[in-house]
């Protein structure tokens, strides 16, 4: 036991929990008291199993539809690979699953099933909206109060919970199907990726799809472009006469949905 400082003990204990290699296992066993009731090996295994079970449970809670889609065994295998690849570095377990979609997109075992990464991305976005920062949301009266001569300068600040993601598979529809306990099915690949937005309204997560022009309008406003810039950018894909009403209609819809926090035109 001589030479085992507090750091040494913690280092070897964490190595044992993380990789369970022979060397760290033997060292930890040599550091641990046996009792007549239970061996050091079995005592240590309580921590080893507990570490994995705890994190697997967190993933199950954060990705319930991915779990259903994959099944118990495959989801557990995924979880164990993820725990090894992305050990938690945040003080809160709330954020442990934040890299799961990235892991699924990178790990060769899963890259051929790209819908898995998309389902993880979808579920993480839903969770994100629930505890994003608070902010005011505007009403249509705020929009009506804008002086006509200032419309060209209009800029928009969106609610902090707003997230935008594109999906090549019909993940949102599949998520709803699983939520409604419909018959199991595989995801369907779409002709092209569709943009979906996620936000929080009255404490609940919301999501809906955008048309191509709407996705462009939103992206430009998010980059702090004003109404004139946005309309100008749409001329390549839309008839110039329809651009202002389409843009205005989208802004009205966003206000109705509850994810515009500020309109400015100074």
């Amino acid at each position, binding site marked *: 036991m001589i030479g085992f400082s507090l750091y040494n003990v913690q280092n070897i204990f964490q190595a044992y929990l993380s990789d369970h290699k022979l060397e760290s296992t033997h060292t930890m066993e040599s550091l641990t008291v046996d009792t007549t009731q239970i061996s050091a090996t079995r005592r240590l295994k309580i921590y080893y199993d507990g570490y994995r079970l705890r994190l697997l449970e967190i993933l199950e809670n954060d990705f319930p539809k991915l779990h259903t889609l994959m099944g118990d065994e495959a989801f557990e295998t995924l979880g164990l690979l993820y725990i090894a690849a992305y050990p938690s570095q945040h*003080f809160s377990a709330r954020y442990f699953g934040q890299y799961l979609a990235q892991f699924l997109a990178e790990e060769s075992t899963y890259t051929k099933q790209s819908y898995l990464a998309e389902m993880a991305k979808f579920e993480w976005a839903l969770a994100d909206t629930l505890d994003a920062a608070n902010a005011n949301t505007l009403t249509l009266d705020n929009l009506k109060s804008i002086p006509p001569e200032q419309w060209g300068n209009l800029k928009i600040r969106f609610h902090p919970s707003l997230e935008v993601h594109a999906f090549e598979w019909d993940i949102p529809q599949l998520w709803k199907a699983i939520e409604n306990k419909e018959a199991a099915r595989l995801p369907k690949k779409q002709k092209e990726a569709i943009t979906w937005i996620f936000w929080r309204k009255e404490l609940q997560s919301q999501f809906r799809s955008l048309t191509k022009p709407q996705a462009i309008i939103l992206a430009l406003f998010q980059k702090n472009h004003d109404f004139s810039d946005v309309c100008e950018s749409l001329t390549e894909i839309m008839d110039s006469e329809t651009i202002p009403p389409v843009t205005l209609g989208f802004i009205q819809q966003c206000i109705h949905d509850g994810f515009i926090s500020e309109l400015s035109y100074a």
Partner: protein
Amino acid sequence: MLGFGLGLRTDHYSAILDTHPPIDWFEILSENYMIPGGKPLYFLDQIREHYPMVMHGVSLSIGSTDPLNWDYLKQLKNLATRVNPAWISDHLCWTGINKQNIHDLLPLPYTAEAIQHVVLRVKAIQDFLGQQILLENVSSYITFKNSELSEWDFLATIATEADCKILLDINNIYVSSFNHGFDPHQYLEGIPCDRVQQFHLAGHTNNVDHIIDTHDAPIVDPVWQLYAAAVKRFGRVATMIERDDNIPPLTELLTELDQAKAIMDQVLSSTAPVAKQTKKDSLAENF
């Protein structure tokens, strides 16, 4: 004067706001509310309007040899400003090193080196927060061969030298006494009365050759009996029941809480607690 509390859990948010149950206070899990905004903070604020609260953390990692996580501590302090808790507690353990978080309450070797390390960190944290903190004894499943003293001497020495308070988890004492073969009453005797500010009670899972602190079941009779002994020694200490899994309806936990009240009343009506005779001031503060 906090009295008898429960852990605030999401399953009970609506029932609490709808029925305003007769609970003296709630203990919140600090990390659940160290977030930017949204649903959890909404309910926290709503419930805080009606009930006192204490903050209980799992990520302080007071025994870790990593540097203190000042980002965590700043967020903890911000949450304390929002909640204005009666006190802030965490566990006498470590949760990871080298920036990794195991998300488990890992035991420390009971050594002079660990005492010195923890005491310095508790002092720094108390200075930063501007208040004493409470350290809780954890359930453990191993002991280290290089431990130089008992767990209760380790906890008592740290509390005294760092001038912090103790959250005495009665179930954890029972669990660890089973797992390590010590006398839980000897543990109680080793804890200074004036340091104990809160009790925890909880259920566990007995796996024959070891017990795991699962917080997923009702409190068992031996833990109630140990609670009675703790009340006899420490007097009117604020008591709280933890349930983290298989969470029952609020009414079921209220029944358990009534049992805790009955035990405390029974013990204190039949016996003048030792602590009350010597530490009147601390008892008045604690309950």
